């Protein structure tokens, strides 16, 4: 696993090896770092349509409405505080960790 701190005001997309995540919120208070892959056929949920009132994201590939509560169960552990966010990401297996395309160093012990 890797601990990554980033500025959520500038970055909303995090990639650890082959797995990628995006920041999502329906109320501006609680934020989730959700997997980008649709559980149906792997569509890019970060490009989908968020419907906060129904609590779903519509996948752009097959128009499936994926309940946020299902996605939140698999969300990466995340702490959001004023000005920064820290996530615990799965082991990238030697691959780099990137935030919005920029390579960053995970916290090293």
């Amino acid at each position, binding site marked *: *696993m*890797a*601990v990554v701190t980033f500025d959520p005001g500038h970055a909303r997309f995090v990639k650890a090896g082959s797995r990628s995540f995006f920041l999502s919120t329906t109320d501006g*208070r*609680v*934020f*989730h*770092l959700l997997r980008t892959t649709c559980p149906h056929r792997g569509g890019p949920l970060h490009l989908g349509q968020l419907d906060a009132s129904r609590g779903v994201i519509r996948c752009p590939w097959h128009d499936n409405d994926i309940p946020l509560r299902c996605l*939140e*169960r*698999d*969300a*990466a*552990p*995340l*702490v*959001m*505080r*004023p000005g920064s966010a*820290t*996530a*615990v990401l799965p082991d990238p297996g030697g691959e780099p960790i990137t935030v919005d395309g920029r390579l960053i160093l995970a*916290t*090293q*012990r």
Partner: protein
Amino acid sequence: MQHKKRPRSDERPKIPAVDDYDFFARCLEEFGESNLFADIETWLVEDNPYRRPLRPHVFKYLDFGKPLAREELLTYTSLTACRTLLTIYESDFILLPRRDLASKRADLDEFYGRRAQVLGAIVRPWLESYLFGFLDDAISISGRWTLSSMREYFESFVAEERRRSDCSMATAILTSDNPQHAARTCLVQLAGDFLLESSAMGRNVGGSYGPLQSEMFKILIDELGYGVHRTRHSSLYEATMESVGLASMPHTYWQFYLTSSLLLNNYYNYVCRNHGRFFRYIGALFQAETGFIEMCRRMADTLRKVFGPGVDVRYFQEHAHIDQHHSRMVFDKMILPAVEMFGEGIIPDIVRGFEEGKFLTGIANQDFLDQVVWSDGSAHWKLLAPAIHRNIEQSREKPKVQRFIEPRGELSVTHVHDGDELCFIQSGIMRFVTGHERSVLLHAGEGTVIRRNRLHGAIIESEECTYDIHSIGDYEQWLS
């Protein structure tokens, strides 16, 4: 297994006895009517832990109904809530004067009396929501936390702490124009908590919660010096205070606690007073015990640099050592077993407490630094006053102004303002106070800029003094 949470309080049906703000406001005013909380005529409260100036005559003008926003943490209303809440929390603790109890017996009876207890019980949850409700918005914990992700998260924090070479409080002291004053100010800020050390923690000793309870007790007995009074941590802190010429009786410097110092002290009571917040507390405890190791090492070095070899730094040396054990004990013997016993559903609470403690500590450090810088700049702020006053006189749109005429000895209990103010003397002499034993004398035609959120008070040193307080908002707009 994830835990099912109760709905947020704003999603539950309202109950008049619990949710009626007007009822709370009346109880708060009643609470403030005790003589114990009235204004006093001295800066220090000597050997009377029950007397705490709260400026209760202002209660009725303040709104505690909506939780503070993050940018309001250091406002006057927040300071008032902090002073009042700590007073209520500490009525759970045994506080006795060192001398002459007989003359203070009536104060003791009133402090612990039925009236204060009943009103305090009604007021406390409102003030807690007012002061700490913002944390729910400021800090969001989400995702699927597992034992291993939590371990990874905390271990990265421990590694970061081990690499840390800076201590913002030490830096503020060493870079001050008057390091000795800054160091004493720092010790005063810490005294509110350290002279009653582990009292909040002690709230967790009762009850029945298995092996965790015994682990908590082990930490507590370290704090209490194993029953040997001179090794009790608060005794060590008393020695530190006395070695630099400060009084060691709790709350002697009540008027000089910054809002953030009170806020942090209140926070530990907040998470310990209500045992529904126990898991948050062990997260906050882990953060405090871990963050304290390096901070105490740096404080011991800094105090020696500033005061020389005569300063007693055993308190800080003891913590730099024992908190290495406490950090490990909280993590290995409390957090990990708690997750094993109660499931991964408690992890977000633990992480929340950890983050909240860290966040409030950061606010306290910054507030201390800002107060030191402002107090150091007294001559500068005094120098600016005549020009700002002239610009106000010549301006068409004048800011709100209040005139005060006060007799010799009139003491204005310390407070803060929510925007910049200009204090300008029309006649007489005022001693404007920016900290314990730190002040600037203002004569007729002189004044000073009171920066937003900075703690200050005043005392009149002429037969009479007439002065104006202009609410200028942002002093810079009155400079040109």
